[in-house]
């Protein structure tokens, strides 16, 4: 099924230069021939109204166009939007900007990286942003969160509530709101409201669960996880079956990608992965499994845990017939000890994630597939494609 969008702007009369009529017709499953006839018919019809002038008829076809609103507004960027977003429209185009302004985004886990991401996406001008994090504000969270001032009245308010106020202020055109509650308790109809879901600081089980809930919906939801430890960061992306346009030799071509779910991706045997996959990928899996086995909250580790983490690495590597030296002790130690985020890395990972979400919403440009790693120690920002080659991908 695809949708066809007509945007017929009828001429502005010179008698009343403010008069303008926009007409939008939504049509399902039409082939191009009747459409051509239809536009001819409209032209004839309009010629009857001598005071109107037909300006243009444009057809756009896309699977990514969200359901159209019938009405006079919402299709063209306002003057205010064009002025505010001028510099970025020059990067991604007015069409992408319109799609951004109609997208709905959910984030959960408001630590430094996600706060950076929220700032980026609110500035970019998404339609709405929903924040989920019921944690109270700690001294530590305060020191690395530029959305909360120390003199704000923090008593009895959650991280999400406090961040919400500042984000609203960044861009009055974006609806920012708070959703209380446990992420894993929400049902499919809750997730159905969103186009993009970003989760951070949650358990392995929760990541898998939310990812599956999104996948079960008929609507395609872009799912991301993001985590930073020490001076390292990881992004995971699941865009399911994704179609997008990209420029090649000055032509726009359609391209398709198939993504595995988080569960599918991490189940791929380590030995079958290409050589030289980032060591961070394996190290993060070890930490994740450790926290799950010990029933810890994400980031609840210390140097005292290192022997047990190393033991778990040994077990996992043996089970996978994988060389332990691929996951260095020093790297695991950094991840176990460095539970506080490093602000420059938050800015970098939050920036990359923002860019990826903008790409996914606009359907423009090569999206990241499907893991991204950054380590300030070597300065590399690497994309890894962790997908089973048998299942497409």
């Amino acid at each position, binding site marked *: 099924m695809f949708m066809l969008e007509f945007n017929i702007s009828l001429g502005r009369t010179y008698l009343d230069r403010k008069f303008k009529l926009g007409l939008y017709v939504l049509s399902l499953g039409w082939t191009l021939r009747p459409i051509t006839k239809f536009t001819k018919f409209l032209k004839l019809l309009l010629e009857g109204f001598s005071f109107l002038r037909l300006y243009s008829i444009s057809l756009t076809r896309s699977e990514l166009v969200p359901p159209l609103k019938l009405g006079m507004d919402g299709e063209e*960027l306002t003057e205010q939007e064009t002025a505010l977003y001028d510099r970025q429209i020059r*990067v991604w185009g*007015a069409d992408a900007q319109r799609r951004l302004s109609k997208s709905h985004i959910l984030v959960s886990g408001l630590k430094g990286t996600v706060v950076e991401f929220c*700032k980026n996406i609110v500035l970019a001008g998404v339609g709405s942003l929903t924040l989920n994090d019921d944690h109270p504000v700690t001294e530590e969270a305060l020191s690395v969160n530029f959305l909360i001032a120390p003199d704000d009245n923090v008593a009895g308010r959650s991280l999400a509530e406090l961040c919400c106020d500042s984000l609203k202020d960044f861009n009055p055109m974006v609806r920012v709101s708070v959703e209380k509650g446990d992420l894993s308790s929400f049902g499919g109809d809750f997730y159905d409201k969103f186009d993009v879901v970003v989760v951070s600081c949650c358990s392995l089980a929760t990541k898998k669960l939310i990812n599956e809930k999104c996948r079960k919906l008929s609507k395609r939801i872009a799912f991301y996880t993001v985590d930073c430890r020490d001076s390292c960061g990881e992004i995971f992306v699941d865009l399911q079956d994704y179609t997008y346009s*990209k420029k090649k030799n000055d032509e726009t071509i359609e391209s398709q990608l198939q993504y595995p779910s988080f569960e599918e991706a991490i189940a791929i045997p380590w030995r079958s992965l290409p050589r030289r996959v980032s060591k961070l990928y394996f190290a993060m899996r070890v930490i994740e499994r450790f926290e799950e086995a010990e029933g810890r909250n994400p980031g609840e580790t210390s140097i005292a845990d290192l022997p047990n983490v190393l033991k778990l690495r040994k077990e996992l590597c043996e089970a996978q017939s994988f060389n332990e030296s691929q996951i260095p002790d020093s790297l695991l130690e950094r991840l176990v000890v460095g539970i506080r985020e490093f602000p420059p890395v938050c800015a*970098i990972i939050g*920036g990359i994630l923002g*860019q990826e979400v903008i790409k996914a919403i606009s359907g423009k440009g090569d999206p990241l597939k499907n893991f991204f790693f950054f380590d*300030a120690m070597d*300065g590399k920002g690497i994309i890894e494609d962790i997908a089973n080659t048998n299942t497409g991908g």
Partner: protein
Amino acid sequence: MATKQQLSAIKGAKVLMVGAGGIGCELLKTLALSGFQDIHIIDMDTIEVSNLNRQFLFRQSHVGQSKAKVARDAVLKFSPQISITSYHANVKDPDFNVDFFKQFNVVLNGLDNLDARRHVNRLCLAAAVPLVESGTTGFLGQVTVHMKGKTECYECQPKPAPKTYPVCTITSTPSKFVHCIVWAKDLLFTKMFGDKNQENDLNVRSSDASSSSEHAEDVFERKTDEDIEQYGKRIYDHVFGYNIEVALTNEETWKNRNRPRPIYIRDVPSTELIQENGNVDKIFVADDPLSVSAMASLGLKNPQDVWSLMENSRIFLEALKLFFVKREKEIGRLTFDKDDQLAVEFVTAAANIRAVSFGIPFHSLFEAKGIAGNIVHAVATTNAIISGLIVIEAIKVLQNDASNYRMTYCLEHPSKKMLLMPVEPFEPNKSCYVCSETPLLLEVNTYRSKLRDFVEKIVKAKLGMNFPLIMHGSALLYEVGDDLEEDMAANYAANLDKVLSELPSPVTGGTILTVEDLQQELSCNINIKHREEFDEEKEPDGMILSGWMQAPPKEKENNKISSDNGASTSNASPAVPLETEEDNEIEIVLTGAENVAAGNKRKLSDISNAATSDLCSVADKTNSKNKPEELDDDDDLVMLDDGNSNTSKKKRLR
């Protein structure tokens, strides 16, 4: 998380940030969160609406206020315990001298222009303070570290010359929309509304074939009591009709080109309607001249729309009329400004009408504004990423961790799986006139060129000096300063108008001139070589500076030169863009007004193996062959496009 050593280095550091714009806002925030305690920030700009989509420390209510000050206040709200000092000033002000720079442990640049970058680079070299330099455009960006004697300075790599076009392409044979924009902006707009006395090629072209009666006088002069509508149409017919007819008579030009089509107002349908709604008084209540708009008066709203010939013609006439009716006082002294709505409308319409003549596609006002105003594409995400990378490098600098310094490129398409690509910094370029003592060579006609030409075209434009002092041996030829004796100042003024060979201490072939900038503490020697003839089109300055050189604008030419010389990655001149040692395609990233060669990946080890003499000889050979070319190339321009892969200027080296 930062280690203990890192934290103590951060806490004890005093840093200077230059620029509180796109990168600056992100950087100030990241520095504060990372624990920096003493930050100084300089920015001369005030806040504009188009900043708000990415400069997140600013709000609508701050428009018009100092960026440095508002950024400081905003960051102190969430980090009240740190010290931030703001300067609403130009970094080139004499107050920011070498002593000022010496108080800092590191300088972090978030600038948007070549001029200021070069200036800061020189002060950092003079003060021996490490510099972390950065730039972004669209999804592309880079961070580099410059430390005197250890890594190359900012000016060791050639920077491409600002884009210029041959005069005849603009006046007679445009083939791209940008040519029409340049014509509309630099010739027509200036002719109509700017300084009438300025030399203007439009004037030349208009009159040279028109010595006959009707066009003998200045057609651009509005006759006494001439109706504004009639005047507008007369100008229209002259520039889009008559001038094209004149050009067509030159058969030689059109042998291998499509002949342009003259356009007269009578050929354009429906422009008569303009009289019906010509009552401008009703529309503009406000007296703000910048709010006057032909689009508003004609009921056109969307700047993204591509107008028809009819609409362009109506905008052209309406904008012209509005200038004369609403902004008459400014006529004669206007210069094009991308934030002047009416000027942008006039230039867009004029460029589009000219484009029709030459079979070039129409562009929207939005696109035309971007081209005419050289607007740099900018998004928050890239600036955030770059700010993180700057802080990471700054911390290494503070810890004196030179072996781990990296230049990092933020790419749009991954190279070797990398979106963020670190590269080892280059060694200083031994022939760099800024950070080494290698003399430059100037070819000039010493019997024709005046000292003024040398000062303006070479010392200021090419060497980027603000307060130059020029010496021949021990004889002072020229000096700039507030505290000059009257007679000295008169002497220098007199010298400016003398040709080089007739100066009190004559400058001829073989002379060595010393040029210094006292503020930048930069001094360099220039060997003078006399040359009789220069090509007016290709060498408009009438003098050629080499030794250090600007990057030739033509990519293909670069490749050809390097292969002609058999230059390989390890021993070629650093001044010539090289083939990279990477297999993958590498992009050159545009940063504001300039390029940085990401593909040029020499490593310190490679360079140190190459003998200095080799470097020099290759450089000399390439310089002599590298005659400036016709600049009408295909890829060296920021073109605006909806797709994000094409939005930035990119070149590929293989």
